[in-house]
């Protein structure tokens, strides 16, 4: 039995065990679930250790790379103190460094990679006309949908009754329209997620069929 065949048989059995959930909670489903979680964590740990031994430790042997790794190693050791409540404060510096750098990188990336390009892509109104009526409709939908979706999250109301009526007139109807846009967006997201899940299911079903064919072929059936 080749490793591929063994993997195919084990995969088939685990898939059937997971699909047994359609009959309700059962030990087979739980066993498959535990195996999945355990293997995932074990594999992640193995990958992390492999990276550590392949990247960090060889660098410590190099005098040139040792200096560059002193600060990361010290920060990493300090980060280990987070596991002990008594000395958890020792890891605050490492945590602050990680959070600060991560926030800065994410913020700069969001600003330069998403917000500005997306705002620039919307462009002026005359750019919408370049696509004809469809382009204009698309642009209007994007603009109106974005504004209404933002107004849908306006929950504050002025205390002044007159201002409250004005606010309800300006925000109430657009807010309801924004909720419609949000429902459409959520529906689309659900549909795509369902499609991805069905794709996985179809792939698993084909894998099981293939595995059964292999098993039956082995038995001469």
């Amino acid at each position, binding site marked *: 039995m080749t490793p591929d065949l063994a993997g195919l048989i084990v995969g088939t059995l685990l898939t059937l065990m997971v699909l047994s959930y359609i009959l309700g909670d059962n030990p087979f489903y739980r066993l498959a679930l535990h195996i999945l979680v355990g293997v995932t964590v074990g*594999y*992640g740990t193995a990958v992390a250790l492999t990276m550590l031994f392949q990247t960090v430790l060889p660098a410590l042997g190099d005098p040139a790379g040792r200096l560059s790794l002193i600060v990361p190693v010290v920060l990493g050791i300090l980060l280990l103190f987070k596991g002990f409540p008594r000395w958890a404060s020792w890891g605050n510096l490492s945590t602050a460094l990680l959070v600060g750098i991560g926030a800065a990188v994410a913020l700069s*990336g969001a600003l330069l990679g*998403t917000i500005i390009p997306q705002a620039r892509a919307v462009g002026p109104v005359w750019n919408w006309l370049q696509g004809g009526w469809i382009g204009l409709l698309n642009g209007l939908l994007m603009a109106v949908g974005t504004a209404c979706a933002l107004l849908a999250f306006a929950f504050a109301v002025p205390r002044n009754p007159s201002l409250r009526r004005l606010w309800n007139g300006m925000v109430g109807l657009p807010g309801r329209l924004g909720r419609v846009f949000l429902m459409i967006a959520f529906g689309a997201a659900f549909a*795509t997620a369902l499609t*991805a899940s069905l*794709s996985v299911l*179809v792939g698993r079903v084909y894998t099981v*069929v293939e595995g059964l064919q292999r098993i039956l072929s082995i038995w001469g059936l």
Partner: protein
Amino acid sequence: MIYCPKCGAGNQDGSRFCAKCGTPIPTTGIRCPVCGTMNPLGNVYCDRCHTRLVPLAISVPEEPEEKPHPVKGLSLPTRPSAGEADWLTQLRYSEEQPAGAEEETETPAAEIPDWLLQLGLVSSSAAKPEEAAGISPFPTRSPEEKFPHGPEWRKGEAAPESAVGEGAPEGIPGFPERYPSEVPEAPPAEQVAPVFPPTELPDWLAELTGVTAPTTPSSGPSPFTEEPLRPAPMEPPPFAPEESAPSAPGGPSVPPVLPEWLTEVAPPAPSGEPEAPSAVPPITLDWLGEGLAAAPPEQIAKTVPPLLLEEETLPGPAPAELPDWLLAARERPETAPHAAPELGGLVPAEIPEWLKPLRPKEVEEAVEEVAESEGLLAGLRGVLPIGRGLDMPTTAARIRPAGPTPAAVARAELLQGLLARPLFQPPEEKSEAPRRAAGWTISRLLVGILLLGAILAPMLVRVPFFGPPVGSGVDQLYAQVEALPPKTPVLLAWEYGPAEAEEMDRVAGPIVVHLLRRGARVLIVSTRPEGPATAAALLHRWIPDSETLMAQVVNLGYQPGGASGVREILSNLGRRTEFLTGAPAADLEIMQGVRSVMDVGMVVLLTAQPDDLRVWVEQVATANPNIPVGAGISARVEPVAGAYLGTGQLRGLIAGWVGGAVYEQRLDTGQGRVYQYYLTSLGLAQLAVAALMILGAAVFLVGGRNK
């Protein structure tokens, strides 16, 4: 020491103003017998200690003979004389012992006659009417005991002797033990011999009174020394004439006739005849005045005290007109011998104001005095009033407590409920899970069978429902890969794991094959731990030629850190190591000339999560905005990727199996039939799910809303 009535500060005797607050100190008033404070006239209670200043009543002892007072007899003031006997001198001095006698008043002597001054002193120091009657209007304890904080002059003062022991009720400790030696026991009334036998009175006095004044005591020891004194009779106060009888000016100028009661206490008249030698000095009549008999009536009225004048001029007031207390005093024949006061230069004067409040009240009022009816002080009258702070209305309405308010009841119930709740809720016994209805399991089984049939149907029957797949962006990505020059480094971000491999392998496979066909150098990196292994598995299945694989593909492994990890990958590609062998990337031939993303000709993102796509797009746009980026993504990421595709940040896109099938048709890798099966199965499964959703919504809308 005089205490200020306002601030209570002590001032020297004779002060007219308080040395502390400047308040005028009343020089004429009533001195409190307890604390010594001078109170204005008219005060009933002391301003400082609230002691009653004016006795409520004077009651005559009903049975004075049965309870003789050991008070030494004394009535009128006497003038000491050189020939006075020692026993009489001691007796007089003893009567003047009560403290405060000299401080009773500060009225100048010029305003008050000497005799009246002495009378006032004696009357204040001698046995008081109420004391003689057995009533103790003031505390009977010594000042040191009862008023330790009193003035200094009172601390050394002896306790009043007036009938303390007799008048004190039973049960009060200290009285019998304190004054047994000072108060001799009085003999019975019938054993007391008359002091002045009638036969010894002078003739002039005998004519006036009808009794004989004693001139010489009987032989033997003096009755004052051998026998205890009888209780002192009530001394006629100076205001007695006003109350007893109206004055009668212009009466006949006859020699004044002393009343009978006065003759008893009057000294023997100087008869000029030698008396028999006696131990008792003769009582002179100097106090009556020598020229009294010869004076005109007007002068007599001015000089003689009203008391004597009235007694002499009036035919004689009936005994019934006198107050009872005065009559009782008159009926006592056994009085101590007195020295006759000197009446020289006396003029009738009115009773000073300070003396009027001391006037005893009528007996009827005394009857109204409420005596203590219970307790240790039962039967005692004139007790000190209770402090004002303790005064309470006797008829105060009883306050009925109001019922609790509803809010209070609610709070109480809430608190009671909280207290009744156990601190630790015992774990409930696990009951068997409610068995679901058989219809629920059957319905799930039917759904499963329906989906499984939809998926396997393409294997069994030909389903002509679905035409060739159409995907947006696939052609753009295909063209972008076709435009790559040979051996162009292409960074392949492998951001999916085994869980998404069923879908993503059908997306990533065609792209990898196309890149390898184009001769590109594929650099695989990942920010997910399972990414490199998933990539290795796919490459093993899709690229059987290991030589080609080793020449064009390098797996640079996993980089943690999320966005920071992506930034690290893009910045330091040349410093990474190979995933399987651990060899430094810089040593690999495929990595020649590649140090960062700037040296890469294209970036292809293979991800099944929207966040991974966003992070990669953003970081690549930040690191090198001009580098073309393509993506092979899951179907669920398509809505997010569409936005980047519209902005040009993504040059091409393969979304899900549909996109993979389209790309596979363009690439023709021999997997077209499999893609067809997959897409048909996927389409049928979607239809089945849509049918189930519509059916469920219909059931919900028709009748299952309340379930």
